[in-house]
């Protein structure tokens, strides 16, 4: 084990090799994605495939880790900010930056060993899950929202969901269903100005990265018991296994193993 990783040596003797070879995909480099990239870079992961088509604006500064006022003045892409953050810690990291919607160039994602999704919208998540299930890649999703309850009190909530091929998916746990997809379509995809702040993103990103580290290293020795669906209550300040985790898990019914792989759509 290299000297620089000696504080992380409890993760396992193969850590150096894992950090050198595992390819991490991060889709969405806003408040959540930037935190994930920061943590992964500090841990020492060397290979990244990053997706974001957006540029930084003033309203991102309250939560986009690594961003500066100067970046806003320069109208820099969020990709650049994440890449700079990684390079500041790992000058020889291999970073593939795709400045598009991931659906427009999905093939680069298929080379990843783990994908983090930090996306807006249920349909976006559903589509990313279908790609990761086809490509047999674990997909760890994070997200948060703030909505007023019936007494007009803001309620902050979020989730971390690990969609592992062979295990229940977002639809199995009813996190994605026709109702939420229909509501999203009816709103014509306009989420409005969604409340976003920095501290819940760090809780969710940290939980997601911790989950990924156990998935990769099994440093707990009990990865088979790993919780794959967490719910976050920002009002109470808690993150805990989702209540649905108590339901005994069965194999996923929405993504059958024989349906993996790309389809050669065309004539028979």
């Amino acid at each position, binding site marked *: 084990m290299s000297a620089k990783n000696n504080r992380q040596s409890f993760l396992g003797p193969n850590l150096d090799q894992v950090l050198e070879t595992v390819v991490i995909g991060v889709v969405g480099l806003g408040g959540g994605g930037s935190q994930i990239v920061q943590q992964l870079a500090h841990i020492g992961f060397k290979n990244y495939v990053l997706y974001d088509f957006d540029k930084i604006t003033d309203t991102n500064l309250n939560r986009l880790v690594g961003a500066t006022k100067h970046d806003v003045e320069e109208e820099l892409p969020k990709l650049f900010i994440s890449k700079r953050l990684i390079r500041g810690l790992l000058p020889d990291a291999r970073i593939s930056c795709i400045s598009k919607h991931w659906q427009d160039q999905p093939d680069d994602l298929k080379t990843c060993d783990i994908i983090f999704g930090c996306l807006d919208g249920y349909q976006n998540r559903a589509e990313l899950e279908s790609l990761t299930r086809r490509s047999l890649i674990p997909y760890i999703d994070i997200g948060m929202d703030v909505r007023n309850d019936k007494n007009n009190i803001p309620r902050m909530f979020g989730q971390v969901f690990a969609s592992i091929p*062979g295990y229940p998916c977002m639809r199995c746990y009813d996190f994605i269903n026709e109702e939420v997809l229909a509501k999203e379509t009816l709103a014509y995809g306009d989420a409005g100005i969604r409340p976003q702040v920095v501290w819940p993103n760090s809780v969710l990103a940290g939980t997601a990265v911790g989950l990924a580290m156990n998935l990769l290293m*099994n440093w707990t020795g009990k990865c088979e018991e790993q919780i794959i669906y967490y719910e976050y209550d920002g009002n109470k300040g808690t993150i805990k296994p989702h209540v649905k985790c108590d339901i005994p898990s069965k194999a996923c019914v929405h993504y059958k193993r024989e349906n993996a792989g790309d389809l050669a759509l065309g004539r028979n």
Partner: protein
Amino acid sequence: MMQLRMPQSIHQEMRSDLRRSHPFAFERIGYIFTKPAGESVLVATGYQSIPDQYYIKDNSVGARIDHQAIALAMKRADMNKEGILHTHIHNKNGLPIFSRDDRADHPNLLRSFRNAAPGMTHGFLLLSTDKMMVRVWLPQHESPIDIFRFTIVNLPLSLDVSGGFLV
């Protein structure tokens, strides 16, 4: 660099089947079916065991299968547009190596697999007790590619980048 990903359920099914003894063959053979995921990744979509009656008695080799065994794989590959990996196990530790007898069979089997699904990648998967390696031919390519990067998808993820599982 090409890589192969396989769900744990298929990996387990394959190893359990290949470990079984056969009435007269010294080894068992099976098939892993694959599809591409992008240009450099193959994903396993299923495993097919070969029924006992499709083996031919031949003491000079570990196992020999008849035309019906090959037809079994060809039929599925044609129907589902899948690639075929002919699979067997060498009962020792460490990175497995195709024997001379293994390699002698490759051209004829490959020809059959390509007849069934010419647009797919086909080849041979060799297991040891703790590692695996794969040799594949891309469609219309004459030279094979050896795969040393494997992922068994499970909790935990099992990633092998040089003939050794990391976890």
